[in-house]
């Protein structure tokens, strides 16, 4: 692994065209799995009745038809807006909480158990409590999505902060860094790969929480659309909407993953 990463960096240094090729190559590898899924999907759909199980083409048509409906677009807009608000909240609050708790290995050990518990419980069954306490509107959905994303963020940042390389701390001591220098030049760069990973995981779980909340109680949004279509047995639209949800999730996630990989490769960690 170390050998391949250093080889990559050398190639990067040597030839800029090689770098583009590598990116395209990576992108190509990335497309293999969706291509296989698409082919399997088409084959299965063709061998079954297409009314019960739509193929990719019907689904694409369903999605295009949806995208012409203004109320659908408004629903997607609402979902994306709530997702961004909840995710930013989870990232900032979770990150700060993890960073503060991580200052003390002792307290981070104490909080490890409850944070992990909140991360791993089936939070969906708590959604009615949110509705009872906050009401049926958007704030409940934001809070519930936030509730999904904040714990993994806090847990990962806390672990990384508490486990910071002792050598770096001693180096900072020896160089008499000021508090801000210490955070800006040593601690944050050392935590960066973990923070990026935590942002990515937190994003996915926040989105999951939002879709669940929308399926259960919302009047607009992607989750609502899915459930409506189940009632109307519009299977082609459901499939199209799932593709749309996957695309919305993949954009930011793949971008974050690419940045994270770059930074990790530069630092020589997997």
């Amino acid at each position: 692994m170390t050998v391949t990463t250093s080889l990559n960096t050398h190639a990067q240094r040597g030839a800029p065209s090689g770098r583009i090729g590598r990116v395209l190559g990576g992108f190509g590898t990335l497309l293999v799995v969706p291509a296989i899924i698409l082919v399997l999907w088409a084959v299965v759909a063709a061998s079954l009745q297409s009314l019960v199980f739509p193929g990719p083409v019907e689904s694409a048509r369903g999605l295009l038809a949806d995208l012409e409906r203004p109320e659908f677009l408004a629903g997607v807009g609402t979902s994306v807006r709530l997702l961004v608000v909840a995710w930013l909240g989870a990232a900032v609050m979770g990150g700060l909480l993890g960073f503060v708790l991580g200052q003390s290995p002792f307290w981070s050990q104490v909080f490890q158990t409850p944070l992990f518990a909140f991360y791993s419980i089936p939070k969906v069954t708590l959604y009615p409590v949110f509705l009872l306490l906050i009401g049926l509107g958007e704030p409940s959905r934001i809070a519930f999505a936030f509730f999904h994303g904040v714990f993994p963020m806090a847990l990962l940042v806390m672990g990384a902060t508490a486990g910071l390389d002792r050598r770096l701390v001693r180096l900072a001591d020896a160089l008499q860094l000021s508090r801000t220098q210490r955070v800006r030049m040593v601690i944050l760069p050392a935590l960066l790969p973990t923070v990026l990973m935590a942002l990515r995981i937190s994003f996915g779980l926040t989105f999951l929480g939002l879709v669940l909340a929308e399926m259960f109680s919302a009047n607009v949004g992607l989750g609502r659309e899915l459930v409506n279509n189940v009632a109307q047995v519009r299977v082609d639209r459901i499939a199209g909407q799932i593709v749309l949800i996957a695309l919305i999730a993949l954009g930011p996630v793949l971008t974050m993953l690419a940045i994270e990989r770059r930074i990790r490769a530069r630092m020589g960690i997997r």
Partner: protein
Amino acid sequence: MTTAVVERRAGLSVRGWTVVLGVAVAALLELAPRVGIVDPFSVVPISEMAIELTALLQTSEFWASALAPSLSAVALSFGFAVVLGVATGIALWEIPAARRVVEPWLTVYYAIPTFALYPLVVAVMGVGLGPIVLLGTMFAIVAVITSTLAGLDAVPATVIRLADSLQLSTYQRATKVLVPAARPYIITGSRLALSYALIGVLASEFVLSTTGLGHFISRAYNDFAFADMYAGVLLVLLLAGAVNALFATLGSGEAGVTR
């Protein structure tokens, strides 16, 4: 410079403080509705949840329509996820080309709300145990695949060379060498998988189903039967706690969330 002395703050060890934290949360849940910090109509004191739950657990109807379907769905999902996940993990590890193609998707898998597939599955298969187990398995399996791969990567090269030299069959190689060697990681992955299976099953039941604990809670909410609802929520939390405790005693509890 490791000292055998357990570190303490204000006389309490890490475990002690964890217990204090738990007791404090329970006390808050008990007192908040009684003192009036929250509306007692919206949140029931935890002691009343427990009393209601005890009553529920004594009715056979609750067992038959809520607990039994959920537990069997979780057990099936978990079983499928571990068996298929380990097998998939080994296959990917043995075929590097396949791994190269699949691995990025394993990394981003939990970032896509796969749960969105559930309405599609229901629309195609109808409500029932099948779609719920399928969703539960899908939620859990990737954790097992990922940890199996990590475990196999950590196996010393000499062990693999030994396996090569013995000329074992594919099946023997997997069961006699690879799985035992990667066991600690597989256990960690299974711990997550059980949590995920529980999440997947309860979420499916909660959103669209006619049976199960998740359905029980959502129906109780819609019927304004909040005492029942909170009893169900408490049971879910107890189940999740039991799952964590089970594996905490089994494994040494290393590696929480990764990837």
